[in-house]
């Protein structure tokens, strides 16, 4: 690895459960990926695929009934995972550490700019809050910085705008403010959860360009969660495809689009309406996403997969590596060592029952 691209965030075997009235929901199961510095990574998946939950787990912002059961999250040499932190004191010190990281080391942009800003506080107050907390500077310095940031994200007359309330801004403007606030403390990583979903296409194009410019300009890494393959194709270097709480395929943008391996990814790509083209029936993935309450032993996608085999329903496929970046977990590519995988999983099941 060269000095330009060194490892920034490494998530290994992350597993998140939510306990609900209906039972335990296994929202994220054994997710592993890595982000290097100066990279933009896109996480793509349908609703309920666990893409947002994995990110909330990284920030330790899971809802009260959710917890990280297993797995490690290493960020810039620090362990962020709260797995195994049982006592109150342990949890408290962990939370304290996380507070220094959120906003300072990792900036976040959320989906809905309408609800994310506090309606009764001026934009200036909200923007300087984080700067003053993390950068240890005076009110005037923080204000100066906020003005400069608003200018950078393309908001005209920032001095006046800082004195206004969120309702005086349009959706696109608010998203710009949130991006400015997320970048205010020069974080190492920017996490953007569906940053353009609530916006119109023409504004979406503006915001995507802004994210790209800021990230490339400031040397920040970014993790963009989206369900729009068009957005990732334009913005990202690498793509992670999630389905039913697992990563089914990951690789560089070119690898995912040109050398698609997993049947789910293929289905997703085929179901995008091409702008040109005739009125022939669209390809689609039959069925609906899995119910995370009722998980079977096999591959999560097997019920909707047109290539499903007997083994898919019974045992989990292993991750097959195709290149440095490109890997995929599907039985189509790991049939050769099926015997060994089946034995391992059988043993695991016996152990967990016994």
């Amino acid at each position: 690895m060269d000095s330009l691209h060194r490892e920034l965030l490494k998530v290994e075997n992350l597993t998140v459960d939510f306990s609900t009235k209906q039972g335990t929901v296994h929202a994220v199961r054994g997710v592993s990926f890595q982000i290097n510095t100066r990279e933009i990574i896109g996480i793509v998946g349908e609703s309920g695929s666990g893409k947002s939950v994995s990110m909330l787990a990284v920030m330790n912002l899971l809802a009260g009934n959710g917890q990280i059961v297993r797995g490690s999250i290493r960020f810039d040499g620090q362990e962020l995972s709260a797995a195994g932190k049982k006592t109150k004191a342990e949890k408290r010190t962990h939370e304290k550490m996380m507070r220094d990281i959120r906003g300072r080391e990792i900036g976040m942009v959320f989906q809905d700019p309408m609800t994310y800003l506090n309606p009764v506080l001026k934009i200036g107050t909200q923007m300087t809050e984080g700067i003053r907390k993390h950068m240890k500077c005076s009110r005037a310095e923080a204000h100066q910085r906020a003005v400069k940031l608003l200018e950078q994200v393309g908001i005209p007359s920032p001095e006046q705008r800082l004195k206004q309330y969120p309702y005086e801004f349009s959706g696109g403007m608010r998203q710009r403010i949130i991006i400015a606030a997320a970048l205010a403390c020069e974080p190492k990583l920017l996490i953007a959860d569906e940053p353009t979903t609530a916006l119109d296409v023409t504004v979406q194009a503006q915001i995507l360009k802004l994210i790209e410019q800021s990230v490339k300009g400031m040397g920040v890494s970014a993790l963009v969660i989206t369900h729009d393959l068009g957005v990732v194709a334009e913005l990202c270097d690498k793509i992670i495809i999630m389905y039913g709480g697992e990563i089914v395929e990951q690789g560089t943008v070119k690898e995912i689009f040109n050398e698609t391996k997993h049947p789910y990814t293929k289905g997703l790509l085929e179901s995008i309406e091409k702008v040109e083209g005739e009125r022939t029936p669209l390809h689609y993935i039959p069925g609906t996403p899995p119910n995370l309450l009722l998980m079977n032993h096999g591959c999560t996608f097997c019920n909707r997969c047109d290539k499903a085999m007997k083994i898919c329903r019974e045992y989990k496929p292993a991750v097959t590596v195709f290149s440095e970046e490109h890997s995929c977990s599907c039985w189509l590519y790991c049939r050769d060592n099926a015997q060994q995988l089946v034995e391992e999983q059988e043993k695991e099941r016996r152990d967990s029952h016994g």
Partner: protein
Amino acid sequence: MGEPVIRVEHLKKSFRVKGSFLEKKQYVRAVNDVSFSIEKGETLGIVGESGCGKSTLGRTILKIYQPEEGHIYFEGTDLTDLSEKQMHPYRKKMQMIFQDPYASLNPRFTVGEMIAEPMEIYRMYGRKERMERVRELMEVVGLKPDHIQRYPHEFSGGQRQRIGIARTLALNPEFIVCDEPFSALDVSIQAQIINLLEKIQDEQKISYIVVAHNLNAVRHISHNIGVMYLGRLVEIGPAAKIYSEPLHPYTKALISSIPAADPNSAGMMDRVLLEGEVPSPINVPAGCPFSTRCKYCTEKCRERMPELAEADGRKVACVLFQS
């Protein structure tokens, strides 16, 4: 070709915005002087950014909102001034599919009751035949007829949208307004619903208006596309023409801002990026509504709204293409 299924002429609809009684009354011009027609078995896609009046247009055509000016013709009959009672027989032929399949179904009705309800209102078929028809409809939209006794919460988003479609089809309509029928659904489910709507259209020769902001989905389902900006139709014509060579500067910007799901394409770099955002529909700029963001804007644009004029096989409202 005979009379178009729907013909709309100079339709206008505005809403009063609440202000204090001392203030001057203000109006949002949601739909402003819109005219078009739809032939049997054809789809007109209406695209535009939020607040451009596309949903209001769909609803005004169904007379959910009473139009202020202009006329709506259904197979040659003028519907504009009909009373609710006189509208009754026409409502049967003009139906609507809603955006949010979670909000548009009654949680206390079973699927069977819900699909049968419109037929009860119009006293179609006897009780037994009705239930048979419900099963038939469920099969048409790809639901299992065995699920007739289930409640909406037992279905996923895509299945609920199918229930909504079955309910709409129960009355054998000739014209359906689909208001953002895909936007609440996941990508893989959207394709299923698009295919279903197209299949139904091919079999039953129904005309659609599809209102949506997802430009790709509309492209696939529509024969013609109408682009709206601040209540006005700025360009209307065959979908293939509009997407491949948009003429109006706004259409150009809109089409080029679709992110291409293809890493090999040129991408964002050579895109026509629009400056700023849509102005408030309360204070629509005088003249062409797009003049404030248009880079070809001249003195002439700020004075008068250009009429829709024929240009290269479609109609465009822009001074650049006026003969």
